[in-house]
């Protein structure tokens, strides 16, 4: 775990010097949010549409930055150097931490902005935060594994979104449904099945990724 932490710190240090991924993610989310708010207006959409729009913005914004964590290692020829000093599992966990950090940074800015701009009234804020948190875990875990797979390919940008979509679809479906309930229901219980699905997805995809990452990382 210490090695994963060191890799996370190294990636964070590099990111704060170049600001490549965080700028891409934040700019994409703000531009999309602005376009959506102009297109449908603040008071015309109901909670179903707003919940879906929130997750579409989060999904596509994360697609613009999550792949960077492995693509950068390949493009700067540092992946071999990293292989020489670290077991594969530590690399995956370190990169997962970094993508989680990116997603949380994205959500801290985008979600309050979305609520304010789209005039979204959240009846159950604790459920809303829990859904966003669990959804981020799933997005980060699935996105990190796909990023590792596509980093060795030629057309990385297009491949990442195409491959991620079917893998991350369960997070989107459960996230949208649970967000809709957080917006309309005062209790957590109506969203129990969606929360279970999000937790199960995060656990399964993280475990499977840790077990399979060695095969992806070492060729």
């Amino acid at each position, binding site marked *: 775990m210490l*090695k994963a932490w*060191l*890799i996370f710190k*190294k990636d964070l*240090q*590099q990111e704060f*010097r*170049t600001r490549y991924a965080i700028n891409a993610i934040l700019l994409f989310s703000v531009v999309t949010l602005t376009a959506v708010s102009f297109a449908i207006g603040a008071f015309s959409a109901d909670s179903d549409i707003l919940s879906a729009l929130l997750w579409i913005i989060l999904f596509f914004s994360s697609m613009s930055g999550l792949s960077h964590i492995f693509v950068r290692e390949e493009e*700067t*020829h*540092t992946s*071999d*150097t990293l*292989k*020489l*000093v*670290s*077991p594969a599992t530590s690399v995956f966990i370190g990169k997962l931490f970094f993508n989680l950090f990116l997603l949380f940074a994205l959500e801290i800015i985008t979600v309050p902005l979305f609520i304010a701009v789209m005039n979204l009234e959240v009846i159950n804020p604790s459920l809303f935060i829990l859904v966003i948190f669990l959804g981020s875990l799933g997005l980060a875990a699935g996105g990190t594994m796909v990023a590792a797979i596509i980093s060795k390919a030629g057309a990385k940008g297009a491949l990442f979104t195409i491959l991620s979509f079917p893998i991350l679809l369960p997070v989107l479906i459960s996230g949208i449904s649970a967000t809709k309930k957080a917006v309309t229901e005062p209790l957590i219980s109506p969203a129990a099945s969606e929360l279970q699905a999000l937790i199960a997805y995060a656990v399964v995809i993280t475990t499977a990724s840790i077990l399979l990452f060695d095969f992806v990382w*070492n*060729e």
Partner: protein
Amino acid sequence: MKFIAESLSKNFSEFKIFTDISFKISSGQCLAITGRNGSGKTTLIRVLSHLIQPSAGKISLLENASIIRREDFYKYIGLVGPYLELYQDLTAQENLEFFARMKDLNNYENRIAYLMERIGLKGRENDLVKTYSSGMKQRLKYVFALLSEPEILFVDEPRSNLDEQGIQTIYEIFEEQKKSNLLILATNDSDDLQFADMRVDLNA
């Protein structure tokens, strides 16, 4: 320490890079891999250092007759090669501290200071790697490879981008490495080949 390669082959799809490479070397020896351009020297070094898998064959590292597990292999090796890069947006010191901590080294500050002075980079520790010249980057790669005093040192194109003083320094390092550990070079240079006790010729 013994390093054994048995019947190694590597193909990329249908394209054969090399076939049936076998050798056995022990501590105190140097193996040179030679061959014309495109003969597979770099690929063989990458296979031997476990960066890529062979298509067939087996590699074993033995310490007192017990086999080192593949997952632990990285703890025993150092590698210098043109395809390896350090993190350009970090300073040399930040790079080396990161790698030293990843390799669980103790007292790494002293080791870094010693190697930076020895290799001729003292005073440039806090410069970003991207500001280094290609010769300085090559020297820094030697510091990276030697941080953990590796049992096996792999060097692909040892003299690449180095000036005469740099070449002299790395030859001294090769002498020391050979005294108690293993050295594997991929080179065609006759001066480098003076260190070799054994040779794998990929033209053959």
